[in-house]
């Protein structure tokens, strides 16, 4: 369908979740999904089609293929059909056979007997009696999986022989029975998310986020002064790193994953606040600025570490559950939360602390105690 980011997830024991970004016609998507595993019996004439050859067939076309009997298609060494525009005729579909099994023939090889449904018996008999010693290719999603030769008129059924092992014979039998997916598909949910609604919501929410962030910057700067500015830098680096990770992995931003990201932003801010509150406390206890910074960081660290590890544990469990059981909301939330908290631990250890030390070296702290809110 030409969709770039199609995502399939197994959900629970019996669901498959498919996402088709950019497609707005559910009926079309459903039709395409249901067609997956389309099995055809194709008239190959005298041409042997090796396994894996991709061919064109006339099934689904407006009119049946009318091939000039003089043109005999060949398959090149590269596995390409010549002439390239040759369209093979589809004799029968997978839905017209039944009772497929695997048996061992007297020579010890594996054969796959099958029956043709009652409605198709006459057609199949006539076709096979007219095409003895020709090839009848078995084609799945336009790709040849086997190309047996018709050895006699077949009445109501037949068997496919070939170079099968027990495994390949069973695989083919399963494919013949069900198509590629060993189940009948039922569409449980189809959902279109209207872009108008989404964009309106996203724009407003982004604006809201920007307003919120502006207030945070203002508050941090007014309340914590110089360290507050350091914190804002540190948060900016945190956000940059996290988004770089999101791009790298890649993480699709859905509402749950944005919520996870915002929660981890909260914990990044909290780490800074914890450090600065401690710093102020130590300053009030009469420490010098350098001592206060070291002690403040040292004393805030256990609470930052333990609370963040707890959050990481939570998100790992949520992620594992989310992926194992198809709760993609839970999974998206947990992934961004874990990544965000991991990065926030890093920025709390490395960035905030080093920024503070650099800042003190640049100024004369004794003269500027006020800048630290003491």
């Amino acid at each position, binding site marked *: 369908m030409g969709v770039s980011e199609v995502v399939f997830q197994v959900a*629970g024991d019996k669901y498959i979740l498919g996402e088709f970004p950019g497609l707005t016609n*559910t*009926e079309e998507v459903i039709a395409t999904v249901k067609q997956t595993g389309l099995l055809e019996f194709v008239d190959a004439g005298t041409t042997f089609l090796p396994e894996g050859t991709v061919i064109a067939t006339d099934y689904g076309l407006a009119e049946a293929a009318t091939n000039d009997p003089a043109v005999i298609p060949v398959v090149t060494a590269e596995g390409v059909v010549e002439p390239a525009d040759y369209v093979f005729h589809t004799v029968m579909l997978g839905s017209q056979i039944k009772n497929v099994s695997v048996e061992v023939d007297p020579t010890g090889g594996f054969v796959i007997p099958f029956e043709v449904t009652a409605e198709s018996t006459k057609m199949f008999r006539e076709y096979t009696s007219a095409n003895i010693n020709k090839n009848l290719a078995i084609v799945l999603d336009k790709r040849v999986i086997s190309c047996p030769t018709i050895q006699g008129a077949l009445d109501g059924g037949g068997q496919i022989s070939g170079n099968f092992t027990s495994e390949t014979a069973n695989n083919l039998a399963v494919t013949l029975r069900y198509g590629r997916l060993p189940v009948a598909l039922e*569409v449980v*949910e*189809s*959902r*279109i*998310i*209207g872009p*108008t*609604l989404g964009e*309106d*919501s*996203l*724009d*407003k*929410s982004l604006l*809201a*986020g920007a*307003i*919120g*962030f502006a*207030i*945070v910057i203002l*508050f941090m700067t007014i*309340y914590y002064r110089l360290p507050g500015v350091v914190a804002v830098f540190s948060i900016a680096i945190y956000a940059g790193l996290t988004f770089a990770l999101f791009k790298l992995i890649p993480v699709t931003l859905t509402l*749950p994953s944005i*919520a*996870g990201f*915002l*929660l981890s*932003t*909260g*914990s990044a*801010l*909290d780490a800074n*606040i*914890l450090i600065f*509150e401690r710093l102020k406390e130590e300053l009030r206890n009469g420490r010098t600025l350098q001592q206060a910074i070291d002690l403040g960081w040292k004393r805030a660290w*256990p*609470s930052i570490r*333990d*609370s*963040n*590890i*707890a*959050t990481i544990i*939570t*998100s790992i469990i*949520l992620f594992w*559950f*989310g992926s194992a*059981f*198809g*709760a993609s*909301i*839970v999974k998206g*939330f*947990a992934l961004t939360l874990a990544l965000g908290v991991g990065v926030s631990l890093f920025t709390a250890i490395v960035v905030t602390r080093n920024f503070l030390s650099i800042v003190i070296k640049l100024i004369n702290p004794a003269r500027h105690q006020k800048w630290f809110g003491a």
Partner: protein
Amino acid sequence: MLNILGKRYIFFAISLLLIIPGLIMLGINGMPLSIDFKGGTLLEVQFPSNALPSTEQVKNIYDGLGIKDAQIQTTEDNVLIIRSSVLSDTVRLDILDQLTTLAGSELIIRKSDTVGPSIGEGVTKRALQAVGLAALAIVLYITFAFRGVPHAFRYGVCAIVAMIHDVLIVLALTGYGARLFGWQVDSLYLTAVLTVIGFSVQDKIVVFDRIRENNTIYRKLEFEKLANHSIVQTLQRSINTQLMTVEFFLLALALFGGVTLREFAVILLVGLFSGTYSSIFIAAPLLVVWENQEWKTWFRRTPKTA
């Protein structure tokens, strides 16, 4: 110094007063599950500007096809939102055909949701199991991280109990919201609850950390005083973190964000506030109750509230 823990039974009472009526409302009206959970079909159809059919007409189409529970809402831009129980593909196409006939020209289908009910059920159940398992892991981790203080296990349990308190507050809020504003529990709601849980546990640990630290500094001090001292020391941080991480962002989201997110923002606002509140007014007091084994006296005389 502020004596917070002395009034612990007042705080317990306040929480119960908020939680119980909300839960009763939920019990009476049932969880207001949206089709995300219950399964059903939601059609959102935009009509040409001059051809918006009446609610009556649309209702008749559904009734004619045997779908009796259709709820029709009109929104701006000539959009109809139609909720109903699950529609099969054929019935839905039938409805869309009839709506097109009614409008006299092509419709724009803005949303067409068919949600199998068991998806919601499975996901909710799994999410609950995941949260349960995570809670267990948190108790174990806190017990390990607090191994230096007496009764480390209690910190984990109290953190989880306070976290459950926050979830109950959110549930109670849902009860009120459903009654007053017709709120529905959808997949976003699940996200909000997960966020509240994550935030709550993290906040408990930060506050407990101070008790852990003070435990080694003031060895002789009575536990209640020690815990009270600790939460007063962390009060400024609690307020600032709450303001910074929660209220600023979420107020902005609730006030300026899109309509779709408003309910989500309000639930988060209350839930995360509760997350900070319960660290101070539920989790730490519970530790004291446990330390003093106060339940032994609960039924002998009136609880001390001073």
